[in-house]
């Protein structure tokens, strides 16, 4: 083969002086506000995804609460108030935490893969803009979409749970005054022994020869156990009621008519953290793999299957691996006052794998940093 037999010189062409090169630091890994803004637009305009985000974070809790409001208005004797502390905790840990993570992960996987799959990343790279900046622009953009949606959904839940909270505190099936100290609860129990003995849960052996029978408290034979025919004295009833009240105080202490403001604030931050984790990990995973479907499936498996398993089943020799799962760590930074997202209230539910808060924080930060790094590295190196 021959090469270039006829030289082309600039004199052969009409070369002339052209415009200056802009000085805009486009090699910097820091994205510009304009890049973030247009990225928000690109994600927000995906109708299906946006609808899913709104439905899961706002729609499902709102519909659930609306139904409860309606049936309470129609038949208040059969159906309790729509709001309250219990409803709040169930919605936050049962719905918003888990499904919020999944839709956030879906958004992250979308943000991490669509530029590649739709062929736009090539156009963006040709602008000369740093690939890292193109990647990092997606993080604030995604969070700009997610954070307000989660906040609106959570505000809806809080509003209903506070405004439509019950007026009486139901604890273990008994109507109990709210906000008593331990001494106050004991005093109230002594004054209402039958309510306590026949409704409150016994949380341990009590060495008092009185139990709740079919027709109210009765004395029992301490040796044989069966009910004795002897009458129960008032002091015996008060002693037993006081003992049960002491046992149940810690549980009573965490039961409210409506969620406290501090708990609501902490819960919002916790949900936002969970959402951000879902988004950023999904973004990194999808950027690493260059596609959306498989990462979404993996994220769902992580949240629905692996995390509950690793959070509650103590696997010998794998305890450190279990602690390194981000979902397990997130449960460990859950606000006090919320039931565990995977082990319930602790009443007969599975026990969480033990993990210190500092370890949990390290695990969460590690996941965010590692997945962001992997995604950024892959996007910077990828042939497009």
């Amino acid at each position, binding site marked *: 083969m021959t090469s270039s037999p006829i030289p082309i*010189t600039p004199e052969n062409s*009409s070369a002339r002086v052209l415009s200056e090169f802009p000085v805009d630091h486009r090699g910097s890994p820091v994205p510009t506000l304009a890049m973030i803004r*247009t990225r928000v637009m690109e994600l927000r305009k995906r109708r299906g995804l946006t609808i899913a985000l709104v439905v899961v974070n706002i729609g499902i809790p709102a519909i659930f609460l609306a139904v409860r409001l309606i049936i309470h208005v129609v038949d208040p004797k059969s159906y309790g108030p729509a709001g309250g502390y219990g409803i709040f905790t169930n919605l936050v840990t049962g719905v918003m935490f888990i499904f919020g993570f999944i839709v956030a992960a879906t958004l992250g996987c979308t943000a991490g893969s669509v530029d590649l799959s739709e*062929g736009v990343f*090539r*156009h963006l790279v040709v602008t000369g803009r740093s690939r890292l900046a193109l990647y990092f622009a997606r993080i604030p953009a995604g969070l700009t979409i997610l954070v307000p949606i989660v906040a609106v959904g959570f505000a809806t839940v809080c509003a209903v749970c506070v405004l439509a909270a019950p007026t009486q505190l139901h604890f273990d099936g008994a109507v109990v005054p709210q906000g008593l100290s331990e001494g106050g609860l004991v005093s109230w129990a002594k004054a209402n022994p039958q309510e306590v003995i026949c409704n409150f849960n016994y949380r341990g052996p009590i060495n008092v020869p009185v139990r709740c029978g079919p027709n109210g408290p009765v004395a029992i034979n301490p040796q044989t156990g069966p009910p004795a025919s002897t009458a129960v004295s008032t002091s015996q009833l008060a002693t037993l009621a006081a003992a049960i009240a002491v046992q149940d105080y810690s549980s009573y202490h965490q039961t409210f008519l409506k969620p406290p403001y501090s708990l609501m604030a902490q819960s919002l931050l916790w949900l936002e953290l969970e959402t951000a984790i879902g988004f950023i990990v999904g973004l990194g995973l999808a950027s690493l793999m260059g596609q959306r479907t498989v990462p979404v499936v993996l994220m769902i498996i992580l949240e629905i299957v692996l995390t509950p398993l690793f959070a509650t089943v103590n696997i010998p020799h794998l305890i450190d691996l279990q602690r390194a799962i981000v979902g397990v760590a997130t449960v460990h930074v859950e606000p006090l006052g919320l039931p565990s997202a995977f082990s319930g209230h602790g009443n007969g539910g599975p026990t969480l794998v033990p993990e210190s808060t500092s370890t949990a924080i390290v695990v969460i930060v590690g996941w965010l940093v590692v997945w962001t790094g992997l995604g950024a590295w892959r996007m910077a190196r990828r042939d497009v």
Partner: protein
Amino acid sequence: MTNTVTTLTPAVTAQSPWAVETHGLTKKFGGRTAVNGVDLLVPRGCAFGYLGPNGAGKTTLIRVLLGLTHADAGTMRLLGHDVPAQRDIALARVGAIVDEPRFHQHLTGRQNLEILAAAREPAATQRIDGALDRVGILHRDNDRVSKYSMGMRQRLGVAACLLGDPHLLILDEPMNGLDPGGMVDMREMITSLVAEGRTVVLSSHLLDEIERTCDAVAIVDQGRIIRQGPITELLAGSSLEVEIECDAPERALFLLTSGPLGAKASVIDDHLLVTLAADTSRDAVAEINRILVTGDVAVYRLQENHASLEKWFLEVTSRLGDQQ
């Protein structure tokens, strides 16, 4: 398409006379060498054709130049800036379509351009209207790209290239999907871009389009550049063909090949095709006519065929094939 808007501010930029300059550029995919030691020089301010058959390595070279994939060996400069060391600076004034232009389908044409403009300098956003107008789709700017035809997407791709007020445009198969009118528009726009002082590198396997549009070409095959230069000079070395329609082609063939002219000739579909050396004067055509007439051959038509890039390309590549 209208010729409006994008104006170039006069100022001195990089000093290199070449818009694209590569030396020994090589790119391998496993054991296959897609770009094989390419030395390419594209002068500024011209339309430059990068011509080759499918799979010749055209798009791979463009991807290497633009930093979409890395080179395995060699050096390259775009607009006087070393790539990849100064890639961000060089690409600031480069616009490119690689393969087919693809966009976010759920967004409008304008929104897609806003995303791309945001990755450039702030002034790029202000060029959106002008770019859309120039490629003739300003009236459809708020339609979703999913509703665009292939030709409109090509135009949108060119509009995206114009956002950066480019000194150099690299267009990979820009005629794909265009109807005849669109091809004419594209050709005119390329001409106008060059007239503004920009350099347009046109990668294509459509020889006719390259010949009509470009000032110079590089022929690439199997990852190597086999020829490069101004089209007029390349074609100057091609042989001259004379097509003859007569009443006795076989007799005419005998007269011309046995006579003093020494022409190569053949009969194809009752036509006589005579091939003369490249440096043959036009008097040879008159001599052919005289030989035939004096030999009692009735000549109905005698046509001189000018060398085309297509014929030259086939000639060059077949010669290479013979050598191999």
